[in-house]
């Protein structure tokens, strides 16, 4: 079954479903405890095999959404369904790729990739074979025995992607994975991610604050509002020549979509800046970190 077939067949199905999800944090300031709403009433459906990009101003709750979906924290209200079932905690059906790679520095590239396979209970040989396979998939064959500090940023992120793919999760959650990379490395990793997505058929939820990145990668782009984060709009990206050689980014259609999202975001960024200034003057809840 080709990727396109798979997708059209499952058009009505929903892989991930955020249903009126709200997350509040308790923030302690001296003796007073206040509530802080990070995301509010988020509704978002992601189809099986879909590449969904989420853009929003920084601090709008993108990572919070991802944590919720990963099962690392629970929503204050609302629910998140994965294959129609509420999420009950972390699990190997979802893989996360973080901006800061989060590789274990004491493990070689291969041993890092094996980590999830160990959690899955695979034997030594099986782990090694799969680790090699995924290292090859991300273009790092021959780097098995390198430690993270011996790899460049781009290579580290490739290892991190391989690690998350290796235990074969159905959903890949990526939290601004390319934000720390230089422009050239970022572009080549974006192209490669699309290639990997097409080959593996994973459902990908890709968080970014880059509009270009969102338009280039996503089949749909969810635009979030400033804090408290909600889904403001979902923009369809009908460009479908991703794996071809030509420079999609310079096309007119790309430019138009880019501008559309940019306009949506601009007001949000202004709002979030205004919010920040307000907080800076000392009233209300403070940004806690």
């Amino acid at each position, binding site marked *: 079954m080709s990727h396109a077939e798979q997708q059209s067949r499952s058009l009505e199905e929903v892989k991930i479903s955020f249903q009126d999800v709200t997350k509040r944090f308790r923030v302690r300031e001296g003796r007073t405890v206040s509530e802080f709403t990070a995301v509010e009433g988020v509704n978002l459906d992601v189809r099986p095999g879909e590449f969904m990009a989420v853009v929003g101003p920084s601090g709008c709750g993108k990572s919070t959404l991802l944590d919720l979906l*990963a*099962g*690392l924290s629970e929503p204050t209200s609302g629910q998140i369904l994965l294959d129609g079932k509420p999420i009950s*905690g*972390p*699990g*190997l059906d*979802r893989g*996360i790729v*973080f901006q*800061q790679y*989060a590789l*274990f*520095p*004491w*493990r070689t590239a291969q041993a890092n990739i094996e*980590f*999830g396979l*160990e*959690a899955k209970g695979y034997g030594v040989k099986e782990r090694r074979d799969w680790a090699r396979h995924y290292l090859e998939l991300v273009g790092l064959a021959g780097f098995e025995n390198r*430690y993270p*500090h011996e790899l460049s940023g781009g290579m580290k992120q490739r290892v991190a992607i391989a690690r998350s793919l290796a*235990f074969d999760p159905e959903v890949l959650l990526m939290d601004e994975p390319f934000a720390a990379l230089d422009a050239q490395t970022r572009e080549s990793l974006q192209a490669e991610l699309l290639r990997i997505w097409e080959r593996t058929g994973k459902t990908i939820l890709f968080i970014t604050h880059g509009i270009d990145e969102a338009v280039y990668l996503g089949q749909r782009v969810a635009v979030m509002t400033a804090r408290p984060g909600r889904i403001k709009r979902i923009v369809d990206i009908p460009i479908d020549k991703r794996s071809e050689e030509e420079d999609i980014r310079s096309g007119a259609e790309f430019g138009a979509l880019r501008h559309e999202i940019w306009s949506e975001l601009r007001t949000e960024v202004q709002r979030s800046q205004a919010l920040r200034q307000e907080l800076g003057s000392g009233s209300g809840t403070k940004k806690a970190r």
Partner: protein
Amino acid sequence: MSLNKALAAGGLAGGKADVGGAAVVGARIKAASAKVVRSTAAIAGLAAIWELAPRLGLVDATFLPPLSKVIEAWWELAVSGALLEHFQASIMRSVSGLLLAIAFAIPLGLAIGYYKPAAAFLNPLLELFRNTAALALLPVFILILGIGETSKVSIVLYACSWPILLSTVNGVRNVDPLLVKSARSLGISPFKLFLKVILPASLPSVFTGIRLAGASSILVLIAAEMVGAKAGLGYLINYAQYNFQIPEMYAGILTISALGLLINQGLIAIERKFSGWKTGPDR
């Protein structure tokens, strides 16, 4: 001639570290030995001053005999077997105290660091003990445990435990939360998380503590041996001074330096084996 011997002790320690190393470690040690060669110049300078100052009458040769005299005394002590006996007594005490401290303080530190309530509860106590100089408690140890081996090993154990304990607690507390999050997102059990993430991530900090402990093990031991002992390098120095055998006293001091170097180099070699993935000039 005399200079060569003085350096032999330092060279010995460097050689020991070389033996156990893997290929990668070997390269690093090679770089380190280049550094040793460079710093040899300073030691040679000190040796020359030590030799010449008493001979030229700049200092009283009675209180600071020329280095060659000290080496001579050292050689006599070595040949007679007395030096080895004292050296063995000291190294046995300091190494067993250190090993006991490692066995005791690492598990305790891991537990305290991992269980937040334990940390909150025990922290004030730890601070209090840490700031009580081990040597101030020496009379207490002697009072309770006598002047035998038990009290000496115990005071070393005591002095070594604090740096190891505190570094271990710190190590566990400062594990990169992102690594924990990343592992937790796979749904692994808290025990596996501890074993596969917390423990290896805190290892470098644990080793820092062990190295600090290695240094204080000797410091405390020598003082303990000076107060009450029938063997050991601290005893040798004290005894020699008491009997006005000044060259022997200095010979003992030089041997203690060698012992310190030996223990430190040994610990560094072990550390490299366990945390070779960590880079940085200070390791």
